């Protein structure tokens, strides 16, 4: 029975996946951004392979050296050094690990919490929906940055705390998206059909509703990832992210801020890395949304 029900579904899903990847592969921005993303992920996974120096190694003789392509630059220090003589490029490469790790896990937390709340609100409706909607409104009333920095200041900026707090800051938006998507499929015939053959609420939610709202979730999660990278960078910039000497992009900008007039490169290059990675996720999110939209003409 399971095979006969899941067989055709799996075949359709596979062909949808094939369609989407084919559409994505045709787009140049996707290829460029995909390549950049793969480079960032590899850097995050094995930073030691690419970093020319130890990111923690200090040298007073090498303080605030400009990039090697500028006058006064030292060979081997392509993006220059910071106020403690540490190699900027190596710290950016190692910083990718923290930024991507914290952001990815925070998105996972917000996605799981958002899906749970959004599916419950959309599927059950009534009082549950009202309560969840009010909770969403309450949390959305707080400026995210202010709430997150206040909570981090109370509970402390450990890696786990950051991931949980940042993740929980994002659940209301995800819940809204999921609720809307659930409402749009809840009344469709296949859900009624599943109910008619005796499927329980959990089964309907897991096997009939979730697969049909997954594309909306994936697209939103890609934008959410960009937002989390921004949030992590902001927290690190304010000194409430992962603590020094661990390199973070936001923390590097914060360090560089004090030497702007002497050494602009210390703050410039980590910011460029943040901008590029956020742009990458935003463009990929846009393209993914277009590729998953059956109403757009993809020819």
């Amino acid at each position, binding site marked *: 029975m399971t095979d006969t029900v899941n067989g055709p579904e799996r075949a359709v899903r596979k062909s949808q996946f094939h369609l989407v990847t084919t559409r994505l592969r045709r787009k140049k921005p996707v290829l460029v951004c995909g390549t950049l993303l793969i480079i960032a992920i590899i850097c995050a996974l094995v930073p030691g392979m690419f970093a020319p120096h130890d990111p923690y190694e200090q040298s007073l003789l090498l303080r605030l050296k400009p990039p090697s392509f500028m006058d006064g630059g030292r060979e081997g220090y392509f993006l220059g050094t910071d106020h403690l003589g540490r190699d900027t490029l190596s710290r950016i490469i190692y910083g990718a690990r923290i930024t991507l790790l914290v952001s990815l896990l925070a998105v996972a937390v917000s996605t799981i919490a958002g899906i749970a709340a959004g599916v419950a609100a959309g599927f059950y409706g009534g009082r549950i929906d009202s309560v969840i909607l009010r909770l969403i409104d309450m949390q959305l009333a707080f400026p995210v940055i202010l709430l997150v920095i206040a909570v981090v*200041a109370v509970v402390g900026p450990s890696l786990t705390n950051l991931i949980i707090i940042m993740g929980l800051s994002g659940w209301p938006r995800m819940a809204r998206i999921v609720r809307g998507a659930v409402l749009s499929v809840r009344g469709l015939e296949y859900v009624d059909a599943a109910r008619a053959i005796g499927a329980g609420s959990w089964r309907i939610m897991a096997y009939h509703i979730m697969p049909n709202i997954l594309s909306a979730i994936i697209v939103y999660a890609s934008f959410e990832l960009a937002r989390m990278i921004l949030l992590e960078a902001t927290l690190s910039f304010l000194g409430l992210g992962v603590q020094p000497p661990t390199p973070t992009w936001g923390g590097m900008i914060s360090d560089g801020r004090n030497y702007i007039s002497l050494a602009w490169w210390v703050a410039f290059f980590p910011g460029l890395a943040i901008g590029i990675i956020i742009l990458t996720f935003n463009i990929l999110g846009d393209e993914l949304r277009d590729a998953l939209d059956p109403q757009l003409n993809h020819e």
Partner: protein
Amino acid sequence: MLRYFIRRLVLTIPVAIGILVISFMLTRLSGDPTDLLLPPDATDSAREAFRRNYGLDQPLLTQFGSFVVNAMRGDFGDSLRFHEPAMSLVMDRMGATLELAVAAMALAILIGIPTGVVAAYKRNTPVDISVRGISLLGQAMPSFYLGILSIIVFSVWLGWFPSSGRGTWWHLVLPAITLSFQLVALIARVTRSCMLDVLGQDYIRTARAKGLGESRVVWLHALRNAFIPVLTVLGLQVGFLLGGVVVIETVFSWPGVGRLAVQAIYARDFPVVQAVVLLFAMIFVFVNLIVDLLYAAIDPRIRYS
């Protein structure tokens, strides 16, 4: 209209209660708030006296009741750093924050909306492509980074504007532009997309057919109908703006509430933190209430639905 107003006002009450609960819980997240509200070297007797004075030895519900009553009176206790009432410290700096936020919002509206309209009208031309590119860039740039870049270029290299502080109009230029940059990008993007929808409608064709000038069709007929989603985004972005001032005021040493909040967080001055969080959340709720009422004024269908 009055019924709509009352209904909307009633819906705000649970949100306001929730905001009070979250603000109250903030200092209790790590357990006993005495650890947060007193310096680490406070003696046991001082802690005991503090608990008694502030009712922290009472049941949680009683404590929440007192918190709500005090919050209604704007009493969040004294700042641990300045030894002045937290709320009066916040209100002293509110003028500077409002100046920055209003300037940023004005820039976002004055630049974002016309840019979005022009981009939609000149769809797929170099103008449109440039606007879309700049919008994408604007949304990818962290505001603090943009602030630092603008300081490097316009203060350090060119010497055109002061890099920090408040005083003259020149001081306002860099922080306001930096704070508004992401907003301009977002509003231009939303306006463009709404205008594209509206420009394809029958009533626009009718307006053109009856001989109205192109600028009248675009700026009066189309923009008015595209305005509701833009207004929604503007209302929601007040939250972004209030969060943004926290960062931008820190970068430019702007003496406003945001900078006070960050300094209070560093100094673990939680009465001030609580006052700022609650005040900002209430401002956000109030602005969105006004936005909702504006919808009803712009579009009569909303009022009667």
